Protein backbone atom coordinates (compact mmCIF):
# COMPACT_ATOMS: atom_id res chain seq x y z
CA UNK A 1 0.00 0.00 0.00
CA UNK A 2 2.75 2.36 1.04
CA UNK A 3 4.76 1.41 -2.04
CA UNK A 4 1.74 1.98 -4.24
CA UNK A 5 1.20 5.42 -2.77
CA UNK A 6 4.81 6.34 -3.34
CA UNK A 7 4.70 5.14 -6.93
CA UNK A 8 1.54 7.14 -7.47
CA UNK A 9 3.20 10.26 -6.06
CA UNK A 10 6.22 9.71 -8.30
CA UNK A 11 4.43 9.27 -11.61
CA UNK A 12 1.23 11.19 -10.87
CA UNK A 13 2.23 14.72 -11.75
CA UNK A 14 4.30 13.85 -14.85
CA UNK A 15 1.43 11.82 -16.23
CA UNK A 16 -1.03 14.65 -15.53
CA UNK A 17 1.27 17.22 -17.15
CA UNK A 18 1.90 15.18 -20.28
CA UNK A 19 -1.80 14.38 -20.55
CA UNK A 20 -2.66 18.06 -20.13
CA UNK A 21 -0.21 18.96 -22.89
CA UNK A 22 -1.48 16.16 -25.14
CA UNK A 23 -5.18 16.93 -24.81
CA UNK A 24 -4.79 20.66 -24.33
CA UNK A 25 -2.89 20.98 -27.58
CA UNK A 26 -4.92 18.40 -29.53
CA UNK A 27 -6.13 19.85 -32.82
CA UNK A 28 -4.12 23.01 -32.25
CA UNK A 29 -4.20 25.33 -35.24
CA UNK A 30 -1.57 27.70 -33.82
CA UNK A 31 1.39 27.64 -36.19
CA UNK A 32 3.95 28.01 -33.41
CA UNK A 33 2.32 25.68 -30.89
CA UNK A 34 1.55 22.47 -32.76
CA UNK A 35 -0.24 19.64 -30.97
CA UNK A 36 1.88 17.17 -29.05
CA UNK A 37 0.75 14.34 -31.32
CA UNK A 38 2.12 16.28 -34.32
CA UNK A 39 5.42 16.78 -32.48
CA UNK A 40 5.69 13.11 -31.55
CA UNK A 41 4.85 12.22 -35.13
CA UNK A 42 7.59 14.59 -36.37
CA UNK A 43 9.98 13.12 -33.80
CA UNK A 44 9.58 9.63 -35.27
CA UNK A 45 9.99 10.90 -38.80
CA UNK A 46 12.93 13.20 -38.10
CA UNK A 47 15.32 11.52 -35.75
CA UNK A 48 15.47 7.93 -36.96
CA UNK A 49 17.71 6.36 -39.57
CA UNK A 50 20.22 8.51 -41.44
CA UNK A 51 19.48 11.63 -39.39
CA UNK A 52 20.57 9.87 -36.25
CA UNK A 53 23.80 8.45 -37.61
CA UNK A 54 24.74 11.63 -39.50
CA UNK A 55 23.66 14.41 -37.16
CA UNK A 56 22.98 13.12 -33.65
CA UNK A 57 25.71 10.53 -33.31
CA UNK A 58 28.65 12.85 -34.22
CA UNK A 59 27.35 15.41 -31.73
CA UNK A 60 27.17 12.86 -28.93
CA UNK A 61 30.59 11.56 -29.88
CA UNK A 62 32.15 15.03 -29.62
CA UNK A 63 30.36 15.55 -26.33
CA UNK A 64 31.74 12.30 -24.95
CA UNK A 65 35.31 12.89 -26.13
CA UNK A 66 35.38 16.49 -24.93
CA UNK A 67 33.84 15.66 -21.59
CA UNK A 68 36.13 12.71 -20.85
CA UNK A 69 39.19 14.68 -21.91
CA UNK A 70 38.14 17.49 -19.59
CA UNK A 71 37.75 15.08 -16.67
CA UNK A 72 41.12 13.41 -17.30
CA UNK A 73 42.97 16.71 -17.74
CA UNK A 74 41.19 18.24 -14.77
CA UNK A 75 42.01 15.36 -12.44
CA UNK A 76 45.64 15.13 -13.58
CA UNK A 77 46.29 18.84 -13.19
CA UNK A 78 44.25 18.95 -10.00
CA UNK A 79 46.35 16.24 -8.34
CA UNK A 80 49.51 18.05 -9.39
CA UNK A 81 48.37 21.47 -8.20
CA UNK A 82 46.72 20.14 -5.06
CA UNK A 83 49.83 18.31 -3.93
CA UNK A 84 52.23 21.26 -3.97
CA UNK A 85 51.33 24.30 -1.94
CA UNK A 86 53.54 26.72 -3.84
CA UNK A 87 52.20 25.60 -7.22
CA UNK A 88 48.75 26.20 -5.81
CA UNK A 89 49.58 29.72 -4.64
CA UNK A 90 51.18 30.44 -7.99
CA UNK A 91 48.28 29.28 -10.12
CA UNK A 92 45.21 29.95 -8.00
CA UNK A 93 44.49 33.52 -9.22
CA UNK A 94 45.05 32.49 -12.84
CA UNK A 95 42.66 29.57 -12.43
CA UNK A 96 40.05 31.73 -10.71
CA UNK A 97 40.28 34.19 -13.58
CA UNK A 98 40.04 31.53 -16.27
CA UNK A 99 37.14 29.87 -14.52
CA UNK A 100 35.20 33.13 -14.38
CA UNK A 101 34.88 33.31 -18.17
CA UNK A 102 31.44 32.36 -19.33
CA UNK A 103 32.57 29.37 -21.48
CA UNK A 104 30.38 30.20 -24.50
CA UNK A 105 32.52 33.28 -25.30
CA UNK A 106 35.28 30.83 -26.16
CA UNK A 107 33.39 29.67 -29.22
CA UNK A 108 34.19 32.77 -31.35
CA UNK A 109 37.86 32.67 -30.30
CA UNK A 110 38.06 28.95 -31.02
CA UNK A 111 36.52 29.51 -34.45
CA UNK A 112 39.20 32.11 -35.18
CA UNK A 113 41.94 29.77 -34.04
CA UNK A 114 40.95 26.47 -35.56
CA UNK A 115 38.01 26.86 -37.92
CA UNK A 116 34.70 25.05 -37.57
CA UNK A 117 35.83 21.43 -37.51
CA UNK A 118 35.48 18.77 -34.84
CA UNK A 119 38.65 19.97 -33.16
CA UNK A 120 37.18 23.39 -32.38
CA UNK A 121 34.08 21.94 -30.79
CA UNK A 122 35.96 19.42 -28.70
CA UNK A 123 38.40 22.14 -27.66
CA UNK A 124 35.56 24.36 -26.53
CA UNK A 125 33.95 21.56 -24.51
CA UNK A 126 37.26 20.67 -22.86
CA UNK A 127 38.10 24.25 -22.03
CA UNK A 128 34.67 24.94 -20.62
CA UNK A 129 34.32 21.75 -18.57
CA UNK A 130 37.80 21.43 -17.15
CA UNK A 131 37.41 24.11 -14.44
CA UNK A 132 34.81 22.56 -12.16
CA UNK A 133 36.71 19.25 -12.28
CA UNK A 134 40.08 20.88 -11.74
CA UNK A 135 39.09 23.14 -8.85
CA UNK A 136 37.16 20.41 -7.07
CA UNK A 137 40.03 17.97 -7.47
CA UNK A 138 42.42 20.50 -5.96
CA UNK A 139 40.11 20.90 -2.97
CA UNK A 140 39.72 17.15 -2.65
CA UNK A 141 43.44 16.44 -2.79
CA UNK A 142 44.10 19.19 -0.29
CA UNK A 143 41.45 18.02 2.14
CA UNK A 144 42.64 14.42 2.44
CA UNK A 145 42.68 12.79 5.84
CA UNK A 146 45.81 13.65 7.84
CA UNK A 147 45.89 10.30 9.62
CA UNK A 148 45.72 8.40 6.35
CA UNK A 149 48.49 10.58 4.94
CA UNK A 150 50.70 9.85 7.92
CA UNK A 151 49.85 6.16 7.79
CA UNK A 152 50.92 6.04 4.16
CA UNK A 153 54.15 7.77 5.03
CA UNK A 154 54.82 5.41 7.92
CA UNK A 155 54.28 2.35 5.79
CA UNK A 156 56.30 3.93 3.00
CA UNK A 157 53.41 3.73 0.57
CA UNK A 158 54.59 5.88 -2.30
CA UNK A 159 54.25 6.43 -6.03
CA UNK A 160 51.36 4.95 -7.94
CA UNK A 161 50.11 2.95 -5.00
CA UNK A 162 49.82 6.10 -2.91
CA UNK A 163 48.22 8.02 -5.78
CA UNK A 164 45.60 5.37 -6.31
CA UNK A 165 44.74 4.43 -2.76
CA UNK A 166 45.25 7.68 -0.92
CA UNK A 167 45.14 10.72 -3.18
CA UNK A 168 42.58 9.74 -5.78
CA UNK A 169 40.46 7.83 -3.33
CA UNK A 170 40.33 10.75 -0.93
CA UNK A 171 39.55 13.21 -3.69
CA UNK A 172 37.00 11.04 -5.51
CA UNK A 173 33.83 12.49 -3.91
CA UNK A 174 35.00 15.97 -4.90
CA UNK A 175 36.06 14.80 -8.35
CA UNK A 176 32.60 13.35 -8.90
CA UNK A 177 31.03 16.62 -7.73
CA UNK A 178 33.16 18.51 -10.26
CA UNK A 179 32.28 16.06 -13.00
CA UNK A 180 28.59 16.49 -12.16
CA UNK A 181 28.86 20.26 -12.43
CA UNK A 182 30.69 19.90 -15.74
CA UNK A 183 28.07 17.70 -17.41
CA UNK A 184 25.39 20.35 -18.12
CA UNK A 185 28.15 22.71 -19.26
CA UNK A 186 29.31 20.08 -21.75
CA UNK A 187 25.81 19.80 -23.18
CA UNK A 188 25.42 23.58 -23.43
CA UNK A 189 28.78 23.89 -25.19
CA UNK A 190 28.07 21.02 -27.55
CA UNK A 191 24.80 22.61 -28.63
CA UNK A 192 25.95 26.20 -29.01
CA UNK A 193 29.24 25.32 -30.69
CA UNK A 194 27.08 23.62 -33.30
CA UNK A 195 24.66 26.51 -33.46
CA UNK A 196 27.47 28.99 -34.07
CA UNK A 197 30.11 27.05 -35.91
CA UNK A 198 28.91 24.09 -37.86
CA UNK A 199 27.34 22.73 -40.96
CA UNK A 200 26.22 19.57 -39.23
CA UNK A 201 25.28 18.27 -35.82
CA UNK A 202 22.31 18.37 -33.52
CA UNK A 203 22.41 22.06 -32.59
CA UNK A 204 22.86 23.05 -36.23
CA UNK A 205 19.99 20.85 -37.39
CA UNK A 206 17.56 22.15 -34.77
CA UNK A 207 18.40 25.75 -35.61
CA UNK A 208 18.03 24.91 -39.30
CA UNK A 209 14.48 23.68 -38.65
CA UNK A 210 13.76 26.95 -36.87
CA UNK A 211 15.13 29.01 -39.76
CA UNK A 212 13.09 26.97 -42.23
CA UNK A 213 9.96 27.36 -40.09
CA UNK A 214 9.58 23.59 -39.82
CA UNK A 215 7.95 24.08 -36.47
CA UNK A 216 6.94 20.50 -35.53
CA UNK A 217 10.44 19.28 -36.45
CA UNK A 218 11.95 22.10 -34.39
CA UNK A 219 9.82 21.16 -31.39
CA UNK A 220 10.88 17.54 -31.78
CA UNK A 221 14.50 18.73 -31.72
CA UNK A 222 13.90 20.65 -28.51
CA UNK A 223 12.35 17.50 -27.09
CA UNK A 224 15.34 15.41 -28.20
CA UNK A 225 17.81 17.81 -26.54
CA UNK A 226 15.77 17.57 -23.36
CA UNK A 227 15.76 13.77 -23.50
CA UNK A 228 19.55 13.75 -24.03
CA UNK A 229 19.98 15.95 -20.97
CA UNK A 230 17.79 13.67 -18.85
CA UNK A 231 19.40 10.43 -20.08
CA UNK A 232 22.94 11.72 -19.50
CA UNK A 233 22.12 12.84 -15.98
CA UNK A 234 20.59 9.41 -15.25
CA UNK A 235 23.68 7.66 -16.65
CA UNK A 236 25.84 9.89 -14.50
CA UNK A 237 23.88 8.93 -11.43
CA UNK A 238 24.32 5.22 -12.17
CA UNK A 239 28.06 5.70 -12.65
CA UNK A 240 28.28 7.75 -9.49
CA UNK A 241 26.53 5.07 -7.46
CA UNK A 242 28.94 2.37 -8.59
CA UNK A 243 32.02 4.60 -8.18
CA UNK A 244 31.12 6.17 -4.87
CA UNK A 245 29.10 3.36 -3.30
CA UNK A 246 31.71 3.00 -0.56
CA UNK A 247 31.54 6.69 0.24
CA UNK A 248 27.77 6.97 0.49
CA UNK A 249 27.76 3.81 2.60
CA UNK A 250 30.34 5.32 4.93
CA UNK A 251 28.39 8.56 5.24
CA UNK A 252 25.14 6.73 5.96
CA UNK A 253 26.94 4.62 8.57
CA UNK A 254 28.31 7.72 10.26
CA UNK A 255 24.88 9.27 10.38
CA UNK A 256 23.30 6.22 12.01
CA UNK A 257 26.09 6.07 14.47
Amino acid at each position, binding site marked *: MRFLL*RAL*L*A*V*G*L*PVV*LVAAWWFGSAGSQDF*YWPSLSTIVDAFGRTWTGAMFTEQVFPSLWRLLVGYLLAVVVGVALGVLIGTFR*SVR*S*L*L*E*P*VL*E*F*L*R*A*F*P*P*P*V*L*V*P*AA*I*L*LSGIGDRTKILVIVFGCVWPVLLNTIEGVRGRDEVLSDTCRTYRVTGLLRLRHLVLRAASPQIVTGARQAL*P*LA*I*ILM*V*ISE*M*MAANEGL*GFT*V*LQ*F*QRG*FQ*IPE*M*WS*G*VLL*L*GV*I*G*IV*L*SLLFRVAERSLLGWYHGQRAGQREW
Partner: protein
Amino acid sequence: MVAVAARPPRVTGRRFRSVTLGAAGLLGFALVLEVAPRIGIVPIDFAPPTSQILVTLADQLGQESFWTALLRTLGTWANGLLIAVVAGTAVGVLLGSLPLLHAATATTVEFLRPIPSVALIPLVIVLYGPTVRSTLVLVVYAAFWQMMVQVVHGVVDVDPIARDTARSFRLGPWARVRYVIWPSALPYVMTGIRLAAAVALILTVTGELVIGSPGLGKEIDNAQQSNAVRVVYALIVVTGILGVLINVVIRQVERRVLAWHPSARAEAVVR
Protein backbone atom coordinates in the same frame (compact mmCIF):
# COMPACT_ATOMS: atom_id res chain seq x y z
CA MET B 1 52.55 33.28 25.61
CA VAL B 2 55.46 34.03 23.34
CA ALA B 3 54.35 31.40 20.86
CA VAL B 4 50.84 32.84 20.79
CA ALA B 5 52.16 36.33 20.23
CA ALA B 6 54.48 35.14 17.49
CA ARG B 7 51.77 33.46 15.50
CA PRO B 8 50.02 36.33 13.69
CA PRO B 9 53.10 37.64 11.86
CA ARG B 10 53.87 34.16 10.60
CA VAL B 11 50.39 33.79 9.18
CA THR B 12 50.59 37.15 7.43
CA GLY B 13 54.02 36.14 6.18
CA ARG B 14 52.59 33.07 4.55
CA ARG B 15 49.75 35.13 3.23
CA PHE B 16 52.19 37.65 1.81
CA ARG B 17 54.09 34.86 0.11
CA SER B 18 50.96 33.40 -1.44
CA VAL B 19 49.82 36.82 -2.67
CA THR B 20 53.23 37.45 -4.24
CA LEU B 21 53.22 34.02 -5.84
CA GLY B 22 49.69 34.59 -7.13
CA ALA B 23 50.66 37.93 -8.66
CA ALA B 24 53.68 36.27 -10.22
CA GLY B 25 51.40 33.59 -11.63
CA LEU B 26 49.09 36.16 -13.24
CA LEU B 27 52.04 38.07 -14.63
CA GLY B 28 53.62 34.89 -15.99
CA PHE B 29 50.32 33.93 -17.57
CA ALA B 30 50.07 37.31 -19.32
CA LEU B 31 53.68 36.99 -20.40
CA VAL B 32 53.18 33.54 -21.92
CA LEU B 33 50.21 34.86 -23.89
CA GLU B 34 52.34 37.80 -25.00
CA VAL B 35 55.30 35.73 -26.16
CA ALA B 36 53.56 32.66 -27.61
CA PRO B 37 52.05 34.48 -30.63
CA ARG B 38 55.22 36.54 -31.18
CA ILE B 39 57.46 33.52 -31.58
CA GLY B 40 54.86 31.73 -33.66
CA ILE B 41 53.57 29.01 -31.33
CA VAL B 42 50.07 30.21 -32.15
CA PRO B 43 49.20 32.25 -35.28
CA ILE B 44 49.57 35.94 -34.38
CA ASP B 45 46.77 36.92 -36.77
CA PHE B 46 44.22 34.93 -34.81
CA ALA B 47 45.66 35.06 -31.30
CA PRO B 48 47.00 38.55 -30.67
CA PRO B 49 49.55 39.08 -27.86
CA THR B 50 48.34 40.38 -24.49
CA SER B 51 49.63 43.92 -25.06
CA GLN B 52 47.63 44.33 -28.26
CA ILE B 53 44.50 42.98 -26.59
CA LEU B 54 44.96 45.47 -23.76
CA VAL B 55 45.44 48.37 -26.18
CA THR B 56 42.26 47.38 -28.00
CA LEU B 57 40.49 47.05 -24.66
CA ALA B 58 41.54 50.58 -23.68
CA ASP B 59 40.27 51.78 -27.04
CA GLN B 60 36.94 50.05 -26.43
CA LEU B 61 36.62 51.70 -23.04
CA GLY B 62 36.49 55.05 -24.83
CA GLN B 63 33.59 54.04 -27.03
CA GLU B 64 29.98 54.62 -26.17
CA SER B 65 28.77 51.47 -27.94
CA PHE B 66 30.92 49.37 -25.63
CA TRP B 67 29.34 50.84 -22.50
CA THR B 68 25.85 50.45 -23.94
CA ALA B 69 26.54 46.78 -24.66
CA LEU B 70 28.06 46.24 -21.23
CA LEU B 71 25.09 47.85 -19.47
CA ARG B 72 22.64 45.79 -21.54
CA THR B 73 24.43 42.57 -20.62
CA LEU B 74 24.46 43.53 -16.97
CA GLY B 75 20.79 44.52 -17.16
CA THR B 76 19.72 41.20 -18.66
CA TRP B 77 21.85 39.32 -16.15
CA ALA B 78 20.50 41.23 -13.16
CA ASN B 79 16.86 40.99 -14.24
CA GLY B 80 17.13 37.29 -14.97
CA LEU B 81 18.90 36.62 -11.70
CA LEU B 82 16.37 38.63 -9.71
CA ILE B 83 13.39 36.82 -11.24
CA ALA B 84 15.07 33.43 -10.75
CA VAL B 85 16.03 34.16 -7.14
CA VAL B 86 12.59 35.41 -6.13
CA ALA B 87 10.73 32.62 -7.93
CA GLY B 88 13.22 29.98 -6.82
CA THR B 89 13.00 31.05 -3.19
CA ALA B 90 9.21 31.16 -3.22
CA VAL B 91 8.82 27.74 -4.84
CA GLY B 92 11.66 26.31 -2.76
CA VAL B 93 10.14 27.39 0.56
CA LEU B 94 6.77 26.04 -0.53
CA LEU B 95 8.15 22.64 -1.60
CA GLY B 96 10.48 22.43 1.37
CA SER B 97 7.78 23.01 3.96
CA LEU B 98 5.09 20.80 2.43
CA PRO B 99 6.47 17.23 2.31
CA LEU B 100 3.54 15.87 0.33
CA LEU B 101 3.92 18.51 -2.37
CA HIS B 102 7.66 17.88 -2.41
CA ALA B 103 7.13 14.16 -2.94
CA ALA B 104 4.54 14.76 -5.66
CA THR B 105 6.76 17.14 -7.64
CA ALA B 106 10.12 15.40 -7.10
CA THR B 107 10.12 13.32 -10.28
CA THR B 108 8.84 16.23 -12.37
CA VAL B 109 11.64 18.44 -11.08
CA GLU B 110 14.18 15.68 -11.72
CA PHE B 111 12.97 15.51 -15.31
CA LEU B 112 12.80 19.23 -15.99
CA ARG B 113 16.06 20.22 -14.32
CA PRO B 114 18.54 18.39 -16.60
CA ILE B 115 16.85 19.73 -19.75
CA PRO B 116 19.59 21.98 -21.12
CA SER B 117 18.34 25.55 -21.29
CA VAL B 118 19.97 25.94 -24.70
CA ALA B 119 17.41 23.46 -26.00
CA LEU B 120 14.93 26.33 -25.67
CA ILE B 121 16.92 28.60 -28.01
CA PRO B 122 15.08 27.76 -31.26
CA LEU B 123 11.78 28.00 -29.40
CA VAL B 124 12.36 31.47 -27.97
CA ILE B 125 13.69 32.74 -31.30
CA VAL B 126 10.48 31.66 -32.98
CA LEU B 127 8.32 33.10 -30.20
CA TYR B 128 10.10 36.34 -29.33
CA GLY B 129 12.75 36.93 -32.01
CA PRO B 130 16.24 38.29 -31.25
CA THR B 131 15.11 40.29 -28.22
CA VAL B 132 16.21 40.63 -24.62
CA ARG B 133 13.07 38.73 -23.67
CA SER B 134 14.33 35.60 -25.45
CA THR B 135 17.62 35.69 -23.56
CA LEU B 136 15.79 36.40 -20.32
CA VAL B 137 13.77 33.20 -20.70
CA LEU B 138 16.98 31.16 -20.99
CA VAL B 139 18.59 32.93 -18.05
CA VAL B 140 15.60 32.50 -15.77
CA TYR B 141 15.10 28.87 -16.74
CA ALA B 142 18.71 27.95 -16.01
CA ALA B 143 19.13 30.00 -12.83
CA PHE B 144 15.75 29.08 -11.34
CA TRP B 145 16.65 25.42 -10.77
CA GLN B 146 19.95 26.27 -9.08
CA MET B 147 18.13 28.53 -6.67
CA MET B 148 15.12 26.34 -6.03
CA VAL B 149 17.06 23.16 -5.31
CA GLN B 150 19.28 24.93 -2.78
CA VAL B 151 16.32 26.54 -1.00
CA VAL B 152 14.50 23.21 -0.74
CA HIS B 153 17.62 21.66 0.81
CA GLY B 154 17.90 24.58 3.20
CA VAL B 155 14.31 24.40 4.37
CA VAL B 156 14.38 20.61 4.77
CA ASP B 157 17.66 20.90 6.66
CA VAL B 158 16.09 22.76 9.62
CA ASP B 159 17.30 21.25 12.89
CA PRO B 160 14.49 19.02 14.24
CA ILE B 161 15.21 20.21 17.79
CA ALA B 162 14.86 23.85 16.74
CA ARG B 163 11.61 22.98 15.00
CA ASP B 164 10.26 21.18 18.07
CA THR B 165 11.36 24.01 20.33
CA ALA B 166 9.54 26.50 18.12
CA ARG B 167 6.44 24.34 18.36
CA SER B 168 6.72 24.08 22.16
CA PHE B 169 6.92 27.85 22.41
CA ARG B 170 3.93 28.14 20.08
CA LEU B 171 5.69 30.32 17.56
CA GLY B 172 3.30 31.50 14.88
CA PRO B 173 3.90 30.70 11.22
CA TRP B 174 5.55 34.06 10.55
CA ALA B 175 7.83 33.88 13.58
CA ARG B 176 8.74 30.32 12.62
CA VAL B 177 9.79 31.43 9.15
CA ARG B 178 11.69 34.39 10.56
CA TYR B 179 13.50 32.72 13.46
CA VAL B 180 13.72 29.04 12.54
CA ILE B 181 13.54 28.44 8.79
CA TRP B 182 15.22 31.61 7.53
CA PRO B 183 18.46 31.40 9.55
CA SER B 184 18.98 27.73 8.79
CA ALA B 185 18.17 28.16 5.11
CA LEU B 186 20.26 31.30 4.64
CA PRO B 187 23.58 29.59 3.87
CA TYR B 188 21.81 27.52 1.22
CA VAL B 189 20.12 30.63 -0.14
CA MET B 190 23.50 32.34 -0.49
CA THR B 191 24.99 29.28 -2.21
CA GLY B 192 21.98 29.25 -4.51
CA ILE B 193 22.46 32.91 -5.38
CA ARG B 194 26.15 32.37 -6.09
CA LEU B 195 25.49 29.38 -8.37
CA ALA B 196 22.55 31.11 -10.04
CA ALA B 197 24.59 34.27 -10.67
CA ALA B 198 27.33 32.32 -12.47
CA VAL B 199 24.84 30.34 -14.54
CA ALA B 200 22.89 33.51 -15.34
CA LEU B 201 26.01 35.17 -16.73
CA ILE B 202 26.77 32.13 -18.90
CA LEU B 203 23.26 32.07 -20.32
CA THR B 204 23.11 35.85 -20.80
CA VAL B 205 26.23 35.74 -22.95
CA THR B 206 25.03 32.60 -24.73
CA GLY B 207 21.73 34.24 -25.61
CA GLU B 208 23.47 37.31 -26.93
CA LEU B 209 25.92 35.22 -28.97
CA VAL B 210 23.46 32.77 -30.47
CA ILE B 211 20.11 34.58 -30.47
CA GLY B 212 21.61 37.99 -31.15
CA SER B 213 19.90 39.96 -28.41
CA PRO B 214 21.82 43.20 -27.73
CA GLY B 215 24.82 43.05 -25.39
CA LEU B 216 28.46 42.04 -25.15
CA GLY B 217 27.84 38.60 -26.65
CA LYS B 218 26.35 40.14 -29.77
CA GLU B 219 29.29 42.54 -30.05
CA ILE B 220 31.67 39.57 -29.85
CA ASP B 221 29.76 37.76 -32.56
CA ASN B 222 29.72 40.89 -34.76
CA ALA B 223 33.45 41.39 -34.27
CA GLN B 224 34.13 37.77 -35.17
CA GLN B 225 31.95 37.99 -38.29
CA SER B 226 33.80 41.10 -39.44
CA ASN B 227 37.18 39.57 -38.56
CA ALA B 228 38.02 42.22 -35.95
CA VAL B 229 40.19 39.71 -34.12
CA ARG B 230 41.54 42.00 -31.43
CA VAL B 231 38.09 43.30 -30.55
CA VAL B 232 36.88 39.70 -30.14
CA TYR B 233 39.62 39.03 -27.60
CA ALA B 234 39.23 42.37 -25.83
CA LEU B 235 35.52 41.75 -25.30
CA ILE B 236 36.15 38.18 -24.18
CA VAL B 237 38.51 39.56 -21.54
CA VAL B 238 35.74 41.94 -20.46
CA THR B 239 33.33 39.04 -19.92
CA GLY B 240 36.02 37.29 -17.88
CA ILE B 241 36.53 40.36 -15.69
CA LEU B 242 32.77 40.59 -15.32
CA GLY B 243 32.71 36.98 -14.14
CA VAL B 244 35.47 37.62 -11.61
CA LEU B 245 33.77 40.77 -10.28
CA ILE B 246 30.41 39.06 -9.88
CA ASN B 247 32.10 36.21 -8.03
CA VAL B 248 34.03 38.52 -5.71
CA VAL B 249 31.05 40.73 -4.90
CA ILE B 250 28.79 37.80 -4.11
CA ARG B 251 31.44 36.17 -1.93
CA GLN B 252 31.80 39.42 0.03
CA VAL B 253 28.05 39.68 0.50
CA GLU B 254 27.98 36.03 1.53
CA ARG B 255 30.67 36.56 4.13
CA ARG B 256 28.92 39.60 5.56
CA VAL B 257 25.46 38.07 5.63
CA LEU B 258 26.69 34.81 7.14
CA ALA B 259 29.20 36.33 9.57
CA TRP B 260 27.24 34.81 12.47
CA HIS B 261 27.19 31.32 10.96
CA PRO B 262 29.55 28.63 12.36
CA SER B 263 30.94 27.76 8.90
CA ALA B 264 31.91 31.39 8.22
CA ARG B 265 33.38 31.80 11.69
CA ALA B 266 35.43 28.59 11.35
CA GLU B 267 36.78 29.88 8.05
CA ALA B 268 37.75 33.19 9.66
CA VAL B 269 39.67 31.40 12.42
CA VAL B 270 41.55 29.10 10.03
CA ARG B 271 42.60 31.90 7.70
